């Protein structure tokens, strides 16, 4: 498959081509700590960062004190029971265990959709019960297309979307950062592309209108807001309209799920990041006949599942994004810099 967005060379033999990353996009997912500041990327392995003795950041590492951190989990697919992962509750619990083991308790968790596999009440029940063990202040949700099956999301809204607008979109401020949860799964278009719709787009335009350009923005939604692989519906038809309202801001981070793998792209001041699933992996774009649950050898499964940790660095108005696979402990990540 030819795609100019993909990195073709690996100059440093470290799994990441920095020039390629800055140009467009990089594969992550190997437990990296990525600090983006002024368009310059620094990546660290977790073992380089964390002092095992103290659990804190090692001395001499130049990272500004962060205001807060939060975790992103995605695509839990509670109710899924196929061979790709017959124990999705177990792997969600493993993701929660990683969150609970973090040196700093995340202020909140973002769940970027597909909480359930079939939008059933018992699946939502299990998810809620399981997430109760996560040590965090609050959990914010947006729905995935699996959460709105059958009833166009009525049950999801009743349970997870109280006090939201329309199909479940909303925004909130936290320590000077403006968070925006968008819904692009209720009206998917031909080919499965996500759709935000005019009503939500109008709301978004108004929502950010009064904000100063220096306000850091974090947008989270289920289906990627950039064209990852439209042939498989991995993109959002009207995302460009949404992004046009955000381009004036100095720092915009877009966090998505849906594709069950980590991809990152930098476009001006907007950084896009997709998270792994806690349930099952999917093939890389174009690497299979179609998207869908991918069965891998059991010993490999947890290396392809995980969560994302994000740390906000107030001084630089930057977000440091760390992808943590379930297969490794937080202090045993491969080193990259």
């Amino acid at each position, binding site marked *: 498959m030819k795609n100019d967005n993909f990195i073709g060379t690996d100059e440093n033999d470290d799994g990441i081509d920095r020039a390629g990353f800055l140009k467009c996009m990089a594969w992550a997912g190997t437990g990296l700590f990525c600090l983006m500041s002024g368009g310059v990327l620094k990546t660290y392995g977790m073992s380089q960062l964390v002092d095992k003795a103290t659990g804190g950041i090692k001395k001499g590492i130049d990272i500004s004190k962060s205001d807060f951190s939060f975790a992103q989990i995605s695509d839990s697919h509670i109710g899924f029971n196929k061979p790709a992962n017959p124990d999705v509750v177990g792997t969600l619990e493993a993701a929660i265990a990683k969150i609970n083991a973090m040196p700093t308790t995340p202020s909140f968790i973002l769940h970027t959709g597909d909480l359930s596999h079939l939008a*059933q009440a018992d699946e939502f029940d299990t998810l809620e019960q399981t997430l109760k063990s996560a040590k965090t202040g609050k959990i914010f949700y947006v729905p995935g297309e*699996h959460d709105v099956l059958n009833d166009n999301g009525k049950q999801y809204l009743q349970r997870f979307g109280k006090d939201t607008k329309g199909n479940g979109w909303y925004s909130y401020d936290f320590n000077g950062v403006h968070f925006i949860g968008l819904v692009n799964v209720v*009206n*998917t278009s031909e080919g499965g592309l996500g759709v935000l719709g005019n009503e939500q787009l109008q709301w978004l335009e108004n929502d950010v209108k009064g904000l100063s350009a220096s306000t850091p923005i974090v947008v989270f939604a289920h289906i990627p807001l950039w064209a990852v692989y439209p042939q*498989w519906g991995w993109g959002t038809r009207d995302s460009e309209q949404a992004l046009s309202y955000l381009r004036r801001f100095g720092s915009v981070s877009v966090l998505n799920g849906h594709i069950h793998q980590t991809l990152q792209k930098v476009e001006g001041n907007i950084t896009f990041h997709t998270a792994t699933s806690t349930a099952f992996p999917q093939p890389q774009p174009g690497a299979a*006949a179609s998207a869908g649950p991918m069965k891998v050898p059991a010993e490999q499964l947890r290396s392809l599942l995980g969560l994302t940790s994000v740390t906000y660095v107030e001084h630089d108005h930057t977000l440091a994004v760390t992808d943590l696979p379930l297969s490794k402990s937080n202090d045993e990540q491969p080193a990259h810099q």
Partner: protein
Amino acid sequence: MLLKKKYAVILGLASSVAIGVAALPSTNNDYKNLKVLPKNISSKDLTRIMIDDFEDGLGVSCTFCHVEGKDSLGLDYANDAKPEKEIARRMMKMTMGINEKYFGLKHPLLGDSVLAINCITCHNGQPRPGDVETK
């Protein structure tokens, strides 16, 4: 004493029945236009067919067969405007027919794990089986 035991047995049986009924998948749905799938199919069974058989089997999403609702706040699942939906019905009948006629399954139902063939057998993740490249 014997009377108490009888009451206990009756109470136990009644409880078992009550628990069994409660455990059955809910059939309280408002599906308006099911023509091949059972009208009393549970939400879970129907959704599992849509996801496991159609979405994963054909590599498509809901909008392959369903049209957007008038209020633009969801899909109009009952609407038959898209020809793909009618084709899906015929395909379900064909698949069940093959399972019954050639594999001897009595009353096969889509979604059953005992089926000899299902959607993915031929579709292999493609909307049309002919789209699959053969080597």
